């Protein structure tokens, strides 16, 4: 993917959450955002997803600028798959229906085709036994996997993960991370916000450390984890990898 962020600024209630964020990545498949809580990672992800409007700055994906105005932003959102930390699925629909809903209503697949696409993904991610269950009957890990299947089903040009495993226990976390690893091996483009440092290290190509609304450091994964330039980054990595 070619992701370009230029001077992105965002304020919430007078508090500066993103301070002139600039990043230019070419031919990078996986970008991982790490950093202390409140650093602005989620906000930046939401801006890329088209769910939040930046106060100023420009975003451009694969050469196309993202226009932050409603009809065009809706089209942009339809090409992006997003997975949040929790509450992704609609509780009144089964797992299968959660996946077919955007396929049918947003991307206008005929119902039979939508179901076929959904079932293929369900089989691939080993969720066949759970396809007719409602989210309340699924475990956290299963829910997140259905959410990922839903995000992938629309063949997005970019996948965004906002701390997908933060609400899960270690065993479920491993299941979900396995799934993300598979997607990585397929060569999909994604931006991931996570606290799972070990995983970030394995899966990232490029890492950006966000702290206090600014990019403290940004570079290829090896550089950030083995040879961080900034003391703040060094501190952060040491703290997180302590246990």
């Amino acid at each position, binding site marked *: 993917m070619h992701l370009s962020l230029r001077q992105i600024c965002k304020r919430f209630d007078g508090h500066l959450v993103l301070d002139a964020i600039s990043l230019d990545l070419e031919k990078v498949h996986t970008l991982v955002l790490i950093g202390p809580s409140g650093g602005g990672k989620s906000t930046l992800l939401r801006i890329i997803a088209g769910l939040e409007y930046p106060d100023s700055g420009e975003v451009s994906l694969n050469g196309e600028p993202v226009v932050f105005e409603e009809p065009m932003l*809706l089209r942009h*959102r339809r090409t992006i798959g*997003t997975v949040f930390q*929790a*509450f992704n*699925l*609609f*509780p009144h629909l089964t797992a299968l229906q959660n996946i077919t809903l955007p396929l049918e209503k947003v991307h206008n697949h005929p119902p039979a085709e939508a179901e076929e696409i959904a079932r293929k993904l369900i089989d691939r991610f080993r969720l066949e036994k759970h396809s007719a269950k409602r989210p*309340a009957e699924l475990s956290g890990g299963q829910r997140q996997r259905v959410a990922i299947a839903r995000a992938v089903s*629309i063949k997005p040009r970019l996948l965004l993960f906002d701390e997908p495993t933060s609400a899960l226990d270690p065993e479920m976390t491993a299941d979900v991370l396995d799934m993300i690893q598979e997607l990585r091996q397929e060569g999909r483009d994604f931006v991931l916000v996570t606290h799972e440092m070990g995983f970030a290290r394995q899966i990232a190509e490029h890492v950006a450390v966000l702290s206090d609304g600014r990019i403290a450091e940004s570079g290829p994964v090896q550089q950030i984890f083995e040879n961080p330039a900034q003391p703040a980054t060094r501190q952060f990595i040491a703290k997180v990898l302590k246990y």
Partner: protein
Amino acid sequence: MQWSRLFVAPSPADKTPLPLWLKACNFAIALLLISLAFYFPFQRLAYHLRWDSVYTYRQMFFLGWLTTISISIGSLLLSTTIGLLAALAQRSRLLPLRYLSKIYIELVRGTPLLVQILIFFYVVADALGVSDRYLVGILTLSFFSGAYISEIIRAGIESIGKSQLESARAIGLTRSQTYRFVIFPQALRQTLPPLAGQFVSLIKDSSLLSVISINEFTWNAQAVNSRTFSTLESYIPLAAGYLILTLPISLWTRYLERKHRFET
């Protein structure tokens, strides 16, 4: 023989269900106590119930009962429509519409139904030239109930968590698609119990329409009373008639609430 076991439920920690015969017996005891409470005052008054005089007017009672049913159903349909429109108007992006519905709701909920009936009938209907009392009755009751129903619907819509709206937005659903596929299916389940409760209120409130001489149940009972001077014999069947309508709905509401309690 532990007598207390017959009348006292075990402590909440003991979760064994109560046998049906025990519940039935105690229910019968409660009914008996209430009947006794009514019986003794009447004994003292040496009041002789004269059912035969009222029996001759049974046709009036029955027709009145049917009229109440038809007014209630008509008002239910109209008020649900009004309530739905008002709830959506409150969330509309068109500002005058939003404030229109807010004013409507506050006015209607803040004034007694009786006052609204009188104003509607003696002022508004006169001015608009609507002479059919029956229609005026349905309109007034619908406007009244509509405000309450709109609040019920609004609560149902707002109970849908913001995260779901965000999820819908993220997958690219438009606003109307979000309403259709995400909000309404869930809001419907939430609003059905309070909506059924509102229907019960509607049936009872329709009795106030008697003040503008609509030939519904209460008016007819009052008419029979004025002809036979048998007050109790007119009003007890009146109460029973309303109970026959409201009790099944109440029980259905309880059933709905129980069913949906596990569906969060």
